[in-house]
C-alpha cells in the first residue's frame, strides 16, 4: 500500500515529511487544530506504520519511522484527542441513561452489565438495510468501506494478547486462532473477505479504498487500534472486542441474505455466513472468558471494559446514521 491522499493541511505536512530525515512534523497546536477528517486520516496512517507500513515510507533501521520521536509526538496528540472525544461520548451516554433512571452497566457481574449495555443500545442498523432495501451499488460501497477494517480483521485485537492475565489470554488466543483460520490460510478471515471483495467485482488489495473512507470509518479503525496498542487501554480493548463479536452473528446473517439477494457473489456471502457461526462462539468466549476473567483479576478495569464496549456500539451507530444520511435513506 502507498500513502493515501492527504485530507487537509496536516496530512500534507505529515505525509510529505514521513519520508524525510530528520523529521520535523507540525507543532502540537497545529495537530490539535486540524480538521477532524484530516486528523483521522493522519492517525490511521501513523498507526499503520506498526501494522504493514507503506511502500513509499522506508522502514530500514536508519529511518525507522515507527519509533521516530516526532512521529510518536504527533501520534500521541492525535490519540489523546480521540480518546478524550470517545470518553466524553461515554460520559454523555451515562448521564443520559442516569437521567432515565438506568445506570448503564450497573449489574454486579461484568458479563451481565455488558449484555445489558449491548442489548439496550439503540442505533440504526446497516445490516437490516442491506438485508431488505439496499441496491447493489450501495452494498458494494458498504463493502469498500468495510474493507478498511475487514482486510486487517483481528489484527488490532492481537495487540491485546500479551497484556492479559493467564485465563483471559488463553481464551483470547483460542478466538484469535479461529479468526486466523486455525492454521489454514484459506480460512483466515481477512483472506476470506479479500476473496469476497474480488467475487463482488471489487479490489482486494490492503487499503485499496482508503482514500474514500469517510470520517466515521476512520474513527472506528483508529479507536480499535488505539485500544489495542496502548497497554493502559487493555480494558477498553477487551470490552470493544466483546461488543464487536456480540453484535456480529445476527447482523452477519442479515448481510449474507442481503448480499445473496443482490447477487454479489458466493464468496462474500460465505464470508458473512462464516461469521454467523464463528461469532456466536466468539461472543460467548469474549464475554464470559476474556472480559470476565480480566475484570476478576483486575477489577479497576471494569469501567474501561464498559467504555470500550460502548465505543464499539456508538461508532457503528454513528457510521450507519452518517451513511444513511449520505445515501438519503430515511426510516432505516
Amino acid at each position, binding site marked *: 500500500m502507498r500513502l493515501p491522499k492527504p485530507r487537509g493541511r496536516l496530512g500534507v505536512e505529515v505525509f510529505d515529511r514521513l519520508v524525510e530525515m530528520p523529521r520535523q512534523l507540525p507543532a502540537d497546536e497545529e495537530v490539535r487544530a486540524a480538521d477532524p477528517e484530516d486528523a483521522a486520516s493522519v492517525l490511521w496512517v501513523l498507526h499503520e506504520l506498526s501494522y504493514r507500513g507503506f511502500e513509499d515510507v522506508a522502514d530500514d533501521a536508519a529511518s525507522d519511522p515507527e519509533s521516530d520521536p516526532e512521529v510518536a509526538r504527533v501520534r500521541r496528540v492525535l490519540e489523546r484527542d480521540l480518546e478524550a472525544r470517545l470518553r466524553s461520548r461515554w460520559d454523555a451516554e451515562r448521564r443520559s441513561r442516569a437521567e432515565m433512571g438506568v445506570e448503564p452497566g450497573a449489574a454486579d457481574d461484568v458479563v451481565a452489565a455488558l449484555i445489558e449495555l449491548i*442489548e439496550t443500545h439503540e442505533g440504526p442498523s446497516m445490516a437490516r438495510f442491506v438485508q431488505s432495501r439496499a441496491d447493489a451499488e450501495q452494498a458494494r460501497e458498504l463493502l469498500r468501506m468495510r474493507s478498511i477494517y475487514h482486510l486487517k480483521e483481528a489484527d488490532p485485537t492481537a495487540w491485546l494478547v500479551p497484556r492479559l492475565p493467564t485465563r483471559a489470554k488463553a481464551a483470547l488466543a*483460542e478466538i484469535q486462532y479461529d479468526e486466523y483460520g*486455525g492454521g489454514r490460510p484459506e480460512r483466515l478471515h481477512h483472506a476470506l473477505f479479500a476473496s469476497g471483495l474480488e467475487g463482488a467485482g471489487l479490489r482486494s488489495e490492503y487499503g485499496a479504498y482508503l482514500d474514500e473512507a469517510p470520517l466515521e470509518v476512520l474513527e472506528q479503525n483508529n479507536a480499535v487500534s488505539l485500544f489495542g496498542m496502548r497497554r493502559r487501554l487493555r480494558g477498553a480493548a477487551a470490552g470493544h472486542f466483546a461488543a464487536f463479536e456480540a453484535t456480529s*452473528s*445476527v447482523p452477519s446473517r442479515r448481510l449474507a441474505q442481503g448480499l445473496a439477494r443482490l447477487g454479489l457473489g458466493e464468496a462474500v456471502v460465505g464470508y458473512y455466513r462464516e461469521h*454467523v457461526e464463528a461469532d456466536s*462462539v466468539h461472543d*460467548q468466549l469474549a464475554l464470559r472468558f476474556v472480559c470476565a476473567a480480566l475484570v476478576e483479576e483486575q477489577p479497576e478495569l471494569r469501567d474501561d471494559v464498559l467504555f470500550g464496549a460502548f465505543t464499539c456500539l456508538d461508532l457503528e451507530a454513528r457510521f450507519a446514521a452518517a451513511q444513511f444520511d449520505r445515501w438519503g435513506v430515511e426510516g432505516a
Partner: protein
Amino acid sequence: MRTPDVVLCPGGPMLLRGDHVVQDAEGRTHETRRPVSAICRCLRSAELPWCDGTHVLLPDERRPR
C-alpha cells in the same frame, strides 16, 4: 482444576471445546469445524445444531437457562 470442555451459557448456547461429532434430533451427524463450537439450546437457530445468535432476539423468559 481443568478448564471445562463443555460450558452452558446462561441465555445462550452450549460451548463445546475440541473436535466432536454431534448427532442432531433427526439423527444426522455434524462434525465440529472450529476450536470451540456453540450448540444451539433455544432451538431457533437456522443453522442447527449450531448456534446462530438468534437467542438474543428472544425475550428473556424464552431463552435457555
